[in-house]
């Protein structure tokens, strides 16, 4: 059941991403991208990351895409001439991205056993023995709750990146305010 829903959500995500790229109207493209991100949030839920799914809805579809739609409406970009490049650039883009997609799609063959084999070099160990950190994380999630299991390493192992992120956000706020001033 979960597999079927995952496949359906993935198909929705890919299709609306295609519509987003080929949609002439910038506002409609943004709405298609919102659909992609909501489908991705559902996929995160199935992949066992409910907190990240909530953050995806809050930050990506809630904050970032609203900012995009705000700017699109502010600049009045609704209608107008098509901004898709000419046939030459289109052909080059299609060839490059399809080639890259075909190359990356080989990843679809991965399963836990193959991943464990590439990490250890032997097939003797079962995936459960190789990925014991996953089991530790699962037990932590059961003991501390989903958010607690993420928050504990965030404030111990990953404390420096966390603090650097707050510095980055402060810089972004100052930068956005300075750039939005009438005279730079």
């Amino acid at each position, binding site marked *: 059941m979960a*597999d079927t829903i*995952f496949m359906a959500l*993935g198909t929705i*995500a890919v299709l609306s*991403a295609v519509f*987003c*790229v080929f949609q002439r109207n*910038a506002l409609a*493209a943004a709405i298609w*991208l919102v659909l992609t*991100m909501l489908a*991705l949030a559902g996929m*995160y839920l*199935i*992949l*066992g*990351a409910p907190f*990240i799914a909530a953050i*995806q809805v809050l930050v*990506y579809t809630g904050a*970032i895409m609203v*900012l*995009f739609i705000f*700017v699109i409406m502010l*600049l009045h*970009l609704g209608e107008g001439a098509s*901004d*898709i*490049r000419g046939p030459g*650039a289109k052909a*080059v*883009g299609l060839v*490059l*991205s*399809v080639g*890259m*997609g075909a190359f*990356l*799609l080989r*990843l*679809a063959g991965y*399963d*836990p056993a193959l*991943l464990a084999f590439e990490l250890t070099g032997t097939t003797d160990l079962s995936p459960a023995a190789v*990925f014991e*950190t*996953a089991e*530790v994380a699962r037990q932590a999630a059961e003991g501390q709750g989903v958010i607690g299991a*993420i928050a504990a*390493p965030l404030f111990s192992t990953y404390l420096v990146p966390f603090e650097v*992120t707050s510095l*980055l*956000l402060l*810089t*972004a*706020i100052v*930068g*956005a305010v300075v*750039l*939005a001033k009438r005279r730079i």
Partner: protein
Amino acid sequence: MLLGPALAFSALLFSIGVLGVLIRRNAIVLFMCIELMLNAVNLTFIALAQYHGVGGQLMVFFVMAVAAAEAAVGLAIILAVFRHTTSVDLKTNTLLQG
């Protein structure tokens, strides 16, 4: 669970984002395609976090913070460029092309 399909969807979404960056000229749509690529990579992180512990989920957390900062500054730059040239079409904004 579902490792292969998740990686496949991630690959598809990333290539669609690359395609968008290559064929569109509207700076804002270009930005949205970059967000699409970031989302594709996040899906990979989440899929592999099932096996490697919560490190992958934390990385997604940081990617989202960086994406939010990038969107705020990038859109402010686009607004400033629009005020200067009254266009967000990359065909007309070629001042840095030399």
